[in-house]
């Protein structure tokens, strides 16, 4: 990859790439150039399209329009394997290993044919080469014969890195990987990135962490709502400028809550005692009135199960969830009766009926209140729906429009509106701003701040540290199913400190 092909400086060029998911336009004509021998940053808010763009380059998705050139040749990968053989490797944000098989089998997934010997797999040769691949990235402590399930989260990530690098890629895509790594893991990754740059290869480095991007990258592309808002060279790197291009306007703290006074610790609304279920082991916590309680951790830390258990969706193996009055929450119906509302992380499959109208969805939990003497008239439903569509500023074509045709942000407003309409006092929100655009995000933060002042209890489970730090009165960090740390609201709290307790 070095030497002869260096004639042109550009390794990857995308030309007016678009990507549509139904009515949603994730990318609206993005043109990016990645030079040889550079670490190129890609930054943007969630939903800005950075992961969509990188997965198109990596062959995981196909563009709806536009063209790509790789090493000056037209490039249209149909699969990740094809991208891989063209010289593009990727390390993904979520878990990218396949459970139930060995480390070596994961590294050579889809390339087993190389070790075929008279139609059988030469396991010995595969293990040996896997060991070399791991040693090459400085992860020699991992045994290539082990089942991948025995490894820690970080070691699994290292296996992915070994897999991506073993194919000798000339372009390595690193998609928000570092949030899940400890300092040691990060150092390994940074060393690899520098080595690749030194040998004339390129890295596309995706992150939403401005500090990290600024230290690691030579150039930087910024996306907002599927549009490119700037490409900066290292001398032009400036946090406020980058942030402005990410968000589209000057942000002065007001994006999140800006009060840092002593948090009002109201009386207890919901009490979790000795709860064990699934990955969760012996968890005790209290949710107070008038507070936003942030729950942080890695996806597999058990924090999502905590929300489900507190809503009565899963029966505890041990322990209990009780209201202040002592009522046991053992089913969603009991939870709703106790004034609890729950917004699932899985918006399209659990929080909403996407094949039903906005009206059907908004009214569903409140039909008993809307009806008079058991009869629910269309007029009563309409006025209820209109009220909440107005209060939450939900953008829609008609009240009968199916939710599948709404944008992610408006869908999320509908799933929140269900519980606000019901008058719930306790809100359990699992990733309430996942995959929605910045404008709606700001509206939801504002709404949560107002609800808090109305003495509602809000528990926000989130994978996004900035919003946890910016919004919560307290943050409880989960690690391996148990509480590893509790932080009080503070201006000086940094992501790095919180991450230490997540991994």
């Amino acid at each position, binding site marked *: 990859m070095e030497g002869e092909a260096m004639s042109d400086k550009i390794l990857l060029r995308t030309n007016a790439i678009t990507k549509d998911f139904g009515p949603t336009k994730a990318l609206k004509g993005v043109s990016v150039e990645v030079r040889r021998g550079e670490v190129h940053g890609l930054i943007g808010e969630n939903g800005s399209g950075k992961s969509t763009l990188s997965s198109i380059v990596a062959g995981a998705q196909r563009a709806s329009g536009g063209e790509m050139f790789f090493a000056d040749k037209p490039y249209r990968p149909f699969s990740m394997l094809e991208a891989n053989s063209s010289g593009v490797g990727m390390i993904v944000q979520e878990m990218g290993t396949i459970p139930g098989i060995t480390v070596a089998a994961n590294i050579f997934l889809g390339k087993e044919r190389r070790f075929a010997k008279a139609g059988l797999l030469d396991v010995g040769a595969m293990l040996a080469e896997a060991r070399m691949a791991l040693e090459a990235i400085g992860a020699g402590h991992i045994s290539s014969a082990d089942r991948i399930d025995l490894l820690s989260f970080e070691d699994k990530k290292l296996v992915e890195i070994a897999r991506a690098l073993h194919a000798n890629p000339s372009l390595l895509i690193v998609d928000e990987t570092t949030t899940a790594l400890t300092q040691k893991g990060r150092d390994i990754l940074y060393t690899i990135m520098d080595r690749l740059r030194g040998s004339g290869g390129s890295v596309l480095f995706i992150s939403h962490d401005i500090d990290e991007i600024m230290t690691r990258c030579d150039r930087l592309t910024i996306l907002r709502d599927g549009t490119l808002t700037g490409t900066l060279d290292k001398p032009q790197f400036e946090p406020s400028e980058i942030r402005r291009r990410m968000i589209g306007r000057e942000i002065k703290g007001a994006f999140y809550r800006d009060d840092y006074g002593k948090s009002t610790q109201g009386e207890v609304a919901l009490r979790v005692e000795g709860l064990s279920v699934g990955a969760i082991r012996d968890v005790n916590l209290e949710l107070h009135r008038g507070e936003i309680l942030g729950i942080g951790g890695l996806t597999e830390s058990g924090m999502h199960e905590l929300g489900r258990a507190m809503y009565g969706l899963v029966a505890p193996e041990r322990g209990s969830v009780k209201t202040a009055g002592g009522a046991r929450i053992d089913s969603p119906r009991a939870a709703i009766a106790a004034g609890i509302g729950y917004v699932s992380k899985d918006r399209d499959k659990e929080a909403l009926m996407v094949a039903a*109208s906005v009206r059907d969805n908004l009214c569903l939990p409140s039909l008993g209140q809307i009806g008079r003497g058991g009869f629910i008239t269309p007029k009563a439903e309409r006025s209820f729906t209109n009220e909440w569509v*107005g209060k939450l500023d939900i953008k829609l*074509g008609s009240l009968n429009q*199916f939710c599948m*045709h709404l944008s992610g942000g408006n869908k999320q407003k509908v799933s929140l509106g269900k519980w606000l309409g019901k008058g719930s006092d306790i809100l359990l929100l699992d990733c309430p701003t996942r995959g929605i655009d910045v404008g709606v995000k700001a509206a939801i933060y504002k709404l949560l701040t107002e609800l808090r002042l109305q003495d509602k209890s809000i528990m926000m489970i989130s994978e996004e540290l900035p919003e946890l730090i910016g919004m919560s009165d307290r943050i409880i960090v989960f690690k391996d199913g148990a509480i590893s740390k509790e932080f009080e609201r503070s201006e000086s709290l940094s992501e790095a400190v919180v991450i230490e307790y997540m991994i």
Partner: protein
Amino acid sequence: MVSEFAASAARNYTGTKAKGEAPKRFLKAFIPYLGLIFILVFFDTVNHGRLLAPRNFMPLVNQIFYTAIGACGMAFVIAQGNLDFSMGAVAGFAAALAARAAGIDPLLAAPVALLVGLVVGAVNGIVHAILNVPSFIATLAMSFMLGGLVLQVLDSGNIGLPLSMLSWDNTLLKLGTLIVLLAVGAIAFEFTRFGKHSKAIGSRIDTAIQSGVAVRKMKILSFMATGLTAGIVGFFAVVRSGTATAITGGGLEMDALNALLLGGMPISGGANSKFRSVFIGSVMVAILVNGMTMWGLGTLVQQLVKGVIFIVAVALSFDRTNTAVIK
């Protein structure tokens, strides 16, 4: 609350419905009516105008009666995304026990038929909702078991009714029953929690559970509704023919299902289910059955046609919006 958001809702309507959505919905709603006109014209033509002759009015009404009553109950089960294949067997079982009861006291026949329907329906519902057996398996098994029980009750023969009971086969009573059932069914389906929760279960059961719908209760209630309507059909079938036989009520589930599907209800249930399917669909099925008989088609051919219509209707009405989720 949320003072700044307190803007008029009207301002949020972008006015641009997803492209082509409105005409498509319009077309979808009218396909059943077009189908109705088509088979009406077709069978009236091939039968040289005898289908709509005054003489054929009562046979047609009788045919509509059974199908519409069955479809009334089935509508709730289908809305939930379930099926009840035992309706015909329940009707037959209810008819046989009603005939036995009539031997003791004619006044017992009707209550026994309805009670039998409710109890069997409750069992179906419990097997499906509590034991988590898929509804078509639970009801197919029930149908099979009831087939055996009916033979037991009938002592492998027929049971005749006391002659006095034939007066129950009364047009006014039947029409009254039909109108009351359709009215109650329509109101329950469109304007009560039972109907709306049933559609929510069919739309997305996880969302229904998380929104506080008593899913098990609603499921059991809907199977009790099919059981009850099957019991009613069984009673009127036995007072019409005067005897309960092993084939009384047979095929009711197919007619009710065909009616709903031809009437435009998606087999997967959910938010697109409308009670008007019961009306139009029952009329269509009645014309179909009556028209085919008049045309001289044998039972065998009729069954074949019904089966083909069922498959085509399912293939056409399967609601893909419910399965293909845009992420």
